[in-house]
C-alpha cells in the first residue's frame, strides 16, 4: 500500500502545473476557459509535440542533445507523403514510408556519431542542413495530402497513437534490457563501460528508437494536411515549439516515468498558449512568457535542495554555538 501512496503522490506532483494553469485562466476568462472544446484542441495540438519530445528525451537521457529532430521529421513527412500518394497505398503506405525514412535518417546519424566520435549537438547541426535539403531535391513543392489520407490527425486516431507511443516509451524505459542499459549509461557512462555495457551499440539503438518516434511525429505532421519544405535552419521552430514542454516534464516528473510527465508538460504549454490567446496577448508575449517559465523552472529544479540546506545549516550552527 505504501508503494501505491508514493506513486500517487508523485503523480499529483506532475499534475500541479496543468491544474494551476486551468485555475489561473479560468479566473482570467471568468469561466470561459473551462470547456471541453479547448482542452480537446490543446490535447490534439500536443500530440505531435509529445511524440517528438519523447524521442528527444530518449537521446537526452544519455546526455545527447539532438537538433536534427525537426529536419528529419520534415524530410520523412514530405518524401513519405509523396511516395504514399505516388504508390496510391493510402494511409498504411504513408505509415510505412514515414517509418522507413525516419528510422533510416536516425540510423545514419547514429552511425556517423559512433564513427566520428563528434558530440551529438555538433553533428546534428550539420545533419539538420543536409536533412532539410534532401526532400527539396525530390519534392521541392512539399507535400499536400488528399483529405482521405489525413484521417490520423482526427480525434480518435491521434489520441490512440499518442497513447500507444507513451506506453511504448514506458515499456522501453522500464522493462526492456535496452531501456535499462540506456538509463545506466546516462547515469554514469564511465562506470557503465567498466561494468561491461557496449556503449556504442546502446547509443545506436537509442538513435534508431528516436528515429521511430520522429517518424511517427512526421506522420502526425503530414496528416495535418500539408507540409512545406524549409530554407536554412527553418526546421528549428518545428522542434523547439514543444522544447519548453519537454523540460517542464523532465523536471516536474522527477520521480515518475517521463512517459507521463512529458505529455503533461507539452499539454500544459499548449494550454498556456490557448489561454494567452483568449486573454488577448499576442504571440510575442507568449514567447516571452514561455522563455521566462523555462528559466524559472530550470532555476527551481537546480536549487530544490537549497532552502532546506540553509535551514539545516542554520540549525547546525545554532546547536554548535550552544555547545561551544
Amino acid at each position, binding site marked *: 500500500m505504501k508503494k501505491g501512496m508514493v506513486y500517487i503522490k508523485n503523480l499529483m506532483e506532475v499534475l500541479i502545473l496543468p491544474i494551476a494553469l486551468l485555475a489561473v485562466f479560468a479566473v482570467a476568462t471568468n469561466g470561459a476557459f473551462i470547456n471541453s*472544446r479547448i482542452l480537446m*484542441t490543446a490535447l490534439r495540438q500536443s500530440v505531435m509535440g509529445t511524440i517528438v519530445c519523447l524521442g528527444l528525451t530518449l537521446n537526452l537521457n544519455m546526455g545527447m542533445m539532438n537538433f536534427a529532430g525537426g529536419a528529419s521529421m520534415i524530410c520523412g513527412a514530405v518524401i513519405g507523403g509523396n511516395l504514399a500518394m505516388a504508390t496510391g497505398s493510402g494511409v498504411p503506405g504513408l505509415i510505412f514510408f514515414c517509418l522507413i525514412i525516419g528510422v533510416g535518417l536516425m540510423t545514419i546519424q547514429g552511425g556517423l556519431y559512433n*564513427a566520428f566520435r563528434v558530440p551529438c549537438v555538433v553533428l546534428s547541426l550539420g545533419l539538420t542542413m543536409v536533412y532539410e535539403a534532401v526532400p527539396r531535391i525530390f519534392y521541392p513543392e512539399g507535400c*499536400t495530402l488528399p483529405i482521405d489520407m489525413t484521417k490520423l490527425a482526427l480525434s480518435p486516431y491521434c489520441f490512440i497513437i499518442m497513447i500507444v507511443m507513451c506506453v511504448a516509451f514506458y515499456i522501453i524505459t522500464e522493462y526492456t534490457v535496452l531501456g535499462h542499459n540506456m538509463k545506466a549509461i546516462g547515469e554514469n557512462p564511465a562506470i557503465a563501460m567498466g561494468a561491461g555495457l557496449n556503449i556504442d551499440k546502446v547509443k545506436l539503438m537509442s538513435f534508431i528508437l528516436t528515429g521511430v518516434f520522429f517518424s511517427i511525429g512526421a506522420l502526425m505532421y503530414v496528416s495535418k494536411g500539408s507540409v512545406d519544405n524549409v530554407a*536554412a535552419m527553418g526546421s528549428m521552430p518545428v522542434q523547439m515549439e514543444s522544447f519548453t514542454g519537454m523540460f517542464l516534464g523532465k523536471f516536474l516528473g522527477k520521480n515518475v516515468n517521463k512517459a507521463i510527465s512529458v505529455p503533461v508538460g507539452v499539454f500544459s504549454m499548449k494550454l498556456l498558449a*490557448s489561454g494567452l490567446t483568449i486573454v488577448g496577448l499576442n504571440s*510575442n508575449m507568449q514567447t516571452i512568457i514561455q522563455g521566462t517559465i523555462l528559466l524559472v523552472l530550470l532555476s527551481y529544479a537546480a536549487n530544490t535542495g537549497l532552502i532546506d540546506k540553509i535551514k539545516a545549516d542554520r540549525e547546525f550552527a545554532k546547536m554548535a554555538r550552544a555547545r561551544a
Partner: protein
Amino acid sequence: MKKQLKKWTALLLCVAMVFVMAGCGNAGDGKDDGKKDGQKQEDETKLTDTTAADVDETLAKAPHFNITVMLGSFTDSQGVETKKALEYIEEHFNVTFNYVETSNTTENTIAAIETAVASDTDGIIGACVKTAACVQAAGDVPMVNQPDIGEAMTKELAGKENYLGSVCEDDYAQGYAAGKALYEAGCRKVCIARMTVGISESIDNRGLGFLDFVAEHDDMELLADNQSRGQYADAVATFASAFPEMDGIFCVIANDGVSQAMVTEGLVGSVKLATVGYASSDKQLLENGTLVYCTGGKAAITMTCFLALYNHLLDESGMIDGETKLITRNSMEIKSVEDFEAMEKYVVGDVPPYNAEEMMNMVHYFNEEFTAGDFAEICNNYTIDDLMSRRSK
C-alpha cells in the same frame, strides 16, 4: 576502427560530389531541368497567325542574359508557383535564372546581391528589398524589386538609375477587400492569423488592410490576432476552441493546412474564411461557401518584374513610370468555383498566366508599338475573365 572512419568519410565525400555535379549540371543549362516533369506541353491554346515554334524561334534570337531571382523562399506556396512560372520562361526565352533564397533577412539579401554582382549577373529581380543599402549593393546592375519599397526610400534612391522600380500587388487593398467580403458575408466577430510582422512587407500590408477595415466598422469586433511563423493551422484550431462566438477568419497566406483545419475543426457552415493566395484544397471550401475571398496568380508579379527588366536589357525601353517607379498590379480575385477551376487550369497549370507569345508581345524589342502605357494597362486588368478570354481566343 580506423577502417570504419575511412569508409564513412569516403561515402560522405562521394555524396557531396553527387550533390555538386547535380547542382552545377542543373545551373549550367537551365533548358532540360531534370527535376521538372520535362515533357514539353504543347500550347493547347490556338495561336492565330504565328505558331509556337515561330515564337520560340524569334525569342531564341535575342541575346542571352543571366538573371538572378531572389525571394524569401522558394518553398512556400507562392514561391513554388513563381519558380514554376520562371522555369517556363527559361524554356522559351534565351535567359538563365539563378534562384537565391534570402529567408527575408537584410544581411542575406545584401550578401546575395553582392555575390550576384560579383558573378557578373546581367540583372536582378525579386530581392524583397527592405533598406536602401540593398539597392546600393547592386552597383550598376539593373534591378526590378518586388514588392514596393515606399516613397521615402524611392526618394532616397532617386539618383540610382540601375533601380528600375518595383512591381507589387496592392496587398493593403486585398486585406481591406477580404475584410469587406467577410463583412458582406455577415461576419461580425473575426480573428486574424498572420505571419510575425517584419518578416515580409507584402504579407504585413495584407494584415494592416484587414485590421483597418475592422477598425473602421465598429459593429465588427477583432477577437484575436495570432502572429506565428507559419503555424496557421494551429492558430485556426485555437481560435475555434477559444472563441465559439467567432464567425469569420482572415489568414494572410492561403495554405492547405488552414483549409483542412476548417474541416477538421467543424467550422464549415458556421465560420467564413478569407485568405490571400492560392491553396489546392480551397476548392471544396468554395463549393460549400466557406471561402468568401481568395486571390491567385501571384506568380505574375515576378513575371512582370522579369518583363520590365528584359525590356530594359534588350533596348533600354523603360516600362515602369519614371517618378513613382512603381507598378501596382491588379489582384486576381476568385469568387466562384468556375473562377477557381479557370485559375487552376490557366494560372498554376503548366502554362503561367502569360504564355510565351503574349509575353513576346509585351517586349518592345519584339513588338515596336508596345508602350509603357500598354504594359501598365495589361497589369491593371489582370482578372480571371481577362485570362479566360485570352485563353479561349
